[in-house]
C-alpha cells in the first residue's frame, strides 16, 4: 500500500537533496568547524553557506541567525532572553492558541517565576482582535510572543503590525515562525520583529535542528552557555549535518515558495472543496482567507476524530486530529476550544497538511474515501438523528 502523507505540519519528509547534502558530514567530513586544521576548518565554510541560505529565505543577514536544536529551543531562548534582559518588566503577552513550546513555557513562568501573562483570545475564525492586542501591550511588557501561523488551523496572525506596537512600548517581539517559514515569503529585515523561531523538520530537513533569528541590536542572553560557537550566542559543537541539511532545505524552500502559493494551495483547495461537496455537516475550522496555503482543518459533526484517523490509517492516509482521544489528554485541542468550535464537531476535527510532494492523484483518492469513512462512522453513531436525548426510554 502506498502511503499518502498529509501531516506535514507535524513533520515533513527530508528532501532528497537535503539528505545528499548532509551525507558527507555524517561520513568522511566529520571535522569540527572550530578546528585549526583544514579537515575541520573547511567544514566551517559549509556551515557558513547554510547560514547564508537560511538568511536569504528569511530576508535577513547571516549574522542574525543562531542555529539551535529546533523550534522549542528557539522559542525558549527568545522568551527567556527577553525576560532576562528586561528585568524591570514583569509581563508577557501571548495568545491562547500557541504551540506548547510557548504556551507551557509561559504557564511555567507565571506559576513559578511570578510573571503576569496576558493571554489573548481569538474569535471563531481563529483571528486575534487588534484592539485587545493593543490594550494588552504596555510599558510593563517584557516580551510579546505571538505565533505567525497556527500549526492546527494554519491561521496567520498580523505579527508585523503587532511588532510595531510592541516596539512603540519598548517591549521585545518574538514570533514562533515554525509553521510559516518556507510557506510564505518573508522579509524580516523590514519588520520590527526581534526574534523568530523556526524548525528544520517542518521544512523538509532533519529533526533536532532549528534556528533563531535574532535581529541585530536586540539585547540577548544565551540559553545554552558553553563554547564560543554561534558568535558566543549558543554554546556546543555545531550539529553540522543538521545545519547543512537545513541550509539546503532553505535554498529549496526559497525556490519552492511560488509552488506553495500556486500548486500546493490549489491541491489544498481541491481537497477542501471535494470534502465539503461530498460530506454533509462538515465545516472548515479557521479563517478561509487568512490561512497557510497547505493547511486544512475540517470538523465533521457527530463523529470522533480518532476513529476517522484509524480508518484513514488503514488506507495509508496520514493526517492528525484535534480530538481529545488522540492526544491522551481528555480535552479536545486548546486551539479549537479557544475558537469556540461547537462541541458537535470539535471532537471530529481532522487536520490535513500538504507539502510540495503531494500529488493530485493522492488528493483525489482522499476526496473519494472521506465520504465513505464519515458515513460508516455516522451509521454507528447515536447522534445526528432525531434522538439525541440521553434518557431511559422504556417502552
Amino acid at each position, binding site marked *: 500500500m502506498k502511503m499518502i502523507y498529509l501531516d506535514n505540519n507535524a513533520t515533513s519528509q527530508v528532501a532528497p537533496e537535503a539528505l545528499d547534502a548532509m551525507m558527507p558530514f555524517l561520513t568522511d567530513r566529520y571535522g569540527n568547524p572550530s578546528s585549526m586544521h583544514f579537515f575541520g576548518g573547511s567544514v566551517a565554510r559549509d556551515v557558513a553557506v547554510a547560514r547564508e541560505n537560511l538568511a536569504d529565505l528569511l530576508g535577513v543577514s547571516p549574522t542574525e541567525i543562531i542555529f539551535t536544536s529546533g523550534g522549542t529551543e528557539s522559542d525558549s531562548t527568545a522568551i527567556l532572553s527577553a525576560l532576562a534582559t528586561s528585568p524591570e518588566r514583569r509581563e508577557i503577552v501571548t495568545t491562547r492558541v500557541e504551540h506548547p513550546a510557548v504556551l507551557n513555557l509561559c504557564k511555567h513562568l507565571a506559576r513559578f517565576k511570578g510573571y503576569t501573562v496576558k493571554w489573548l483570545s481569538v474569535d471563531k475564525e481563529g483571528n486575534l482582535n487588534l484592539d485587545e492586542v493593543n490594550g494588552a501591550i504596555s510599558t510593563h511588557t517584557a516580551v510579546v510572543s505571538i505565533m505567525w501561523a497556527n500549526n492546527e488551523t494554519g491561521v496567520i496572525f498580523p505579527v508585523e503590525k503587532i511588532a510595531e506596537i510592541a516596539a512603540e512600548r519598548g517591549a521585545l517581539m518574538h514570533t514562533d515562525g515554525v509553521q510559516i517559514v518556507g510557506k510564505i515569503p518573508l522579509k524580516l529585515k523590514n519588520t520590527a520583529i526581534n526574534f523568530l523561531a523556526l524548525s528544520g523538520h517542518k521544512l523538509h530537513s532533519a529533526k533536532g535542528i532549528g534556528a533563531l533569528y535574532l535581529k541585530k541590536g536586540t539585547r540577548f542572553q544565551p540559553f545554552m552557555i558553553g563554547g564560543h560557537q554561534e558568535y558566543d550566542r549558543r554554546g556546543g559543537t555545531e550539529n553540522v549535518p543538521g545545519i547543512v541539511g537545513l541550509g539546503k532545505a532553505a535554498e529549496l524552500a526559497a525556490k519552492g515558495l511560488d509552488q506553495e502559493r500556486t500548486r500546493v494551495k490549489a491541491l489544498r483547495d481541491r481537497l477542501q472543496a471535494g470534502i465539503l461537496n461530498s460530506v454533509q455537516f462538515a465545516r472548515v475550522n479557521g479563517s478561509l482567507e487568512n490561512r497557510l496555503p497547505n493547511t486544512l482543518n475540517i470538523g465533521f459533526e*457527530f*463523529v*470522533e*476524530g*480518532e*476513529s476517522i484517523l*484509524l480508518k484513514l490509517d*488503514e488506507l495509508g492516509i496520514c493526517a492528525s486530529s484535534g*480530538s*481529545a*482521544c*488522540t492526544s*491522551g*489528554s*481528555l*480535552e*479536545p485541542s486548546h486551539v479549537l476550544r479557544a475558537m469556540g468550535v461547537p*462541541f*458537535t464537531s470539535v*471532537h471530529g476535527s481532522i487536520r490535513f497538511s500538504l507539502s510540495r510532494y503531494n500529488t493530485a492523484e493522492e488528493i483525489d483518492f482522499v476526496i473519494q474515501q472521506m465520504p465513505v469513512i464519515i458515513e460508516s462512522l455516522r*451509521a*454507528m*453513531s*447515536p*447522534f445526528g438523528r432525531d434522538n*439525541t436525548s*440521553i*434518557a*431511559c*426510554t*422504556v*417502552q
Partner: protein
Amino acid sequence: MWEYTEKVKDHFFNPRNVGSLEDADAIGEVGSLACGDALKLYLKIDPDSHKILDARFQTFGCGSAVASSSAMTEMIKGKTVDEALAITNQDIADYLGGLPKQKMHCSVMGKDALEAAIACYRGEPAPKDHLDGELVCECFGVTDKHIREVALENRLNNIEEVTNFTKAGGGCGLCHDKIEKILEEIRGQLKLRQSTVDVPPKEMTNIQKIARIQEVIDKEIRPSLQKDGGDMELIDLDGSHVKIAFRGLCSSCPSSALTKAGIESKLKELVHPDLVVEEVMA
C-alpha cells in the same frame, strides 16, 4: 499513536452488533457529544428467563470506545441479566486483550451503559445519573459516587488513574483536590487489598503455604496494623484454618473482627481461597 491490540482493531474495524433494536426491552445511554464519547445500548430480554436474547449498540467515540461496545455486546448475549451485571469493566478490557491505560474509561463506559440498560429494564432510575451523588468534575460531569465505585473496583491509587478510568479531572483540573480527598477516604479500604506479593502458585505444600502466609502477613498486613499501634502473629496452620493472635492495641480493639475479615480476604486472595482465619489466645 495508541498501541491497540489486534483484538481491539478487529472490533473497531469489524464491530459486532452495531445498530438499534426496534422492539428493545431496555435502552441504556451514557456519555454525550460534549464529552467526546457516548454509547447507546439496546437489549432484547426474555421476560421469563431474563436472558439477553439480543444486544445492539450505537457508539460515538474513539477506536477503543467502539471496540469496548462491540466486545461488551458479544459478552452479554445469552447471559441472564444478573450474569451480565457481574461483568466488570476489567472483564471488557481483558476480552479485548487489554486497553491502553488512558483508554480504560472506554471500558467503564461499556459497563455503565449495561448497568443503565438493565436498570431501565427493571424500572429503576439510571444508576450513573448525573444527579446521583455530588458533582465533582464539572468538565465531564462525574460525581463522587461514580469515582468512588470505579476507584474501589479497579483499585485506583492516584488522580491520573482516576482520570484514565472515569475522565474526572482530565479537563480544567480544578477538581483535583476533591478527587484526592475521595482517594484518601477509600485508601484505607484499599490498603488491605493492595498487593506487593506475587500471584500464588496453584499447588502448594503445607510448608510453602505457611511460608506464604507469613510473607503476606509481614508485607501486607502487619505494617498497616503497626501504624495504628497494633500487631499480630501467626500461631499455627491447621488444614485451611489460619490461627492468629492479635498484639498491642489490636488485642483490645473493638474492630478486630473487621480486621480479621480483612486479613482473611487478603489471605484468600494471595494464598488460597479456602483459608479461614481464626483468632486464638496465645
